[in-house]
């Protein structure tokens, strides 16, 4: 906020510095409040899960687990088939991620480096499928799964999620960014097209594939809508589904147990956050640039 007098005459350097300092302080304070409101609920969840179930609803709340108590974590494993939920989630998410990495790398390579009739039109169709919301195709997919005899199996969650338009788009971009003379050189050396892909391009594409894998892992680990519809029996539940049903069963009982389950479900996401954050951010905003 500058006054008119300040703008008409050049302010003294010292005053200018002090003014920008106040601006910076105000900015940092506002940012800190925003960061506290963003991280606060998560810290509260963590510290509440580390309290004994009898102390769940403690006010004033604490945001740091000073005296960690792991009773609730033991209870989660007793009340909920946590092991099965984790295994199901890991299996579904892992296989989707691997399937997407491989199929997207192959399709991306074909769109970037191989010539065939209808390449442009086909790529447009692939991109167009990105616009279709999952809720529109879910009823026919549900029928299809029933028709294939895959009702209430983990494959019902895995198979439809493997073809990926976004992943194909990302991998095509990635391959286009690699020098084309590599293919020339390989051809001159007498490498077959397959060999060129296998030994020259695929190894170079690993970072791109990692982005596809991390994005797939994060998205499908957290997925709720499809599992809610495509899994019926509890032995096939994934984590988010199991937690929601646990919460339903407990009402407002010992919330620390429910929160312990929530914290456990966050661990893989946290690992990805710590080691793959850059890739995740790059992937999330990829293809949105000018």
């Amino acid at each position, binding site marked *: 906020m*500058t006054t008119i007098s300040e*703008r008409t005459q050049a302010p003294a350097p010292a005053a200018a510095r002090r003014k920008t300092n106040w*601006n*910076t302080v105000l*900015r*940092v304070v506002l940012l800190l409040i925003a*960061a506290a*409101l963003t*991280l606060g609920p*998560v810290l509260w969840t963590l510290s509440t899960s580390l309290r004994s179930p009898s102390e769940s609803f403690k006010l004033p*709340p604490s945001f740091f687990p000073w005296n960690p108590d792991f009773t609730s974590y033991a209870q989660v494993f007793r009340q909920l088939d946590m092991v099965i939920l984790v295994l199901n989630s890991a299996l579904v998410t892992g296989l989707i991620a691997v399937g997407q990495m491989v*199929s997207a790398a*192959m*399709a991306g390579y*074909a769109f970037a*480096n*191989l*010539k065939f*009739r209808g390449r*442009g*039109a086909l790529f447009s169709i692939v991109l167009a499928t990105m*616009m*279709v*919301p*999952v*809720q*529109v*195709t879910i*009823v*026919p997919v549900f029928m*299809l799964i029933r028709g294939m005899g895959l009702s209430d199996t983990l494959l019902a969650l895995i*198979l439809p999620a*493997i*073809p990926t338009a976004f992943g*194909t788009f990302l991998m095509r*971009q990635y391959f286009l*960014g690699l020098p*084309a*003379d590599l*293919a*020339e050189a390989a051809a001159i050396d007498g490498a077959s*097209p397959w060999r*060129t*892909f296998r030994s020259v391009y695929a190894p170079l594409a690993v970072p791109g594939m990692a982005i596809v894998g991390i994005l797939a892992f*994060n998205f499908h680990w*957290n997925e*709720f*809508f499809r599992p809610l*519809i495509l899994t019926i029996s509890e032995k096939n539940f994934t984590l*988010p589904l199991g*937690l*929601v049903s646990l919460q339903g069963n407990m009402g407002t009982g010992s919330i620390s147990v429910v*929160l312990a389950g929530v914290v456990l479900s966050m661990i893989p*996401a946290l690992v990805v956050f710590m080691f793959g*954050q850059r890739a995740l*951010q790059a992937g*999330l*905003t990829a293809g*949105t640039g*000018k």
Partner: protein
Amino acid sequence: MSTTTRHRAQAAGSVAPPAAHAKAGRHSQPWLAWLFLAPTILGMGLFTLLPIVASLVLAFFRWDIISAPTFVGFDNFAEVVQDPTVRVSFLNTLVFVVVAVALQLGLALALAIMVQEKLPAWLRTFFRSAFFFPLILSAASVSIFMRYLFNEQFGVVNWALSLVGIPAVPWLTTPGGSAAVVILVYVWQNFGFSFLLFVGGLASIPVETYEAASLDGATGWRKHVHVTLPLLSPTTLLASVMAIISALQVFDQPYVLTRGGPGDSTRTAVMVIFESAFQRLEFGQASAIGVILTLIIMAITAAQFRLSKRFVFYQ
């Protein structure tokens, strides 16, 4: 659509000259390309394209899985459009989109501008990570712990409000309170995505532009109104379209937080698709609602392209 492959390679902004890519193709065989495409194309054909067609067809039939489907013409659409629950849900979704997207974009833009101005590097990294963090959590998990935070008697939110003398708010037991919670929880989780887009957009504005503006006597917020906002308009348009499209499909948060209640106050369009298909087994009607929602999404995307021609300022 029917651009040449050469032009496509150029448009993709590849590092290598496009001609080289076209030449590399000389050594490739089409059968290999089709082999490479097979998993993706077959998978999409089976699990995306076929279901889209099936959905369009199904919207004109009455079918409950048990008996044979019967053709009913536009009856499903007529019934759906007149169904009070469907109407309320679409209206709720519309209100939700307007309020949540406005909050999400406003918050993201303000924070992005604040983060991008002079700050120590470690602090900037910390804030970016903090705002990005909720994105990696599952909406179901978030909705579970938010339910406890917004609990009327024991919730931390009402406790914090009581510190400044505000009486307990009946968050999850009244229509207005529930709608507010669904919006707040959704924005809390999703503003980080818009924030990332804005940070990227701001980073691409050349520093010289600001220097020129400063020479012309623009200071502080004035600089942002006259320089940042016009130059950021492509990002703003992109961020708003993406935010609108995802907000139109909101399901996880209201399902876990309120199950659409109290009454129908927080029921959304996707919840109605889910309920009519998998609770009432009216697959034709569910498809009809899905078709309507998709048409709305396509209309918004088309409008985006129109608007971008008219209002967006490209350098």
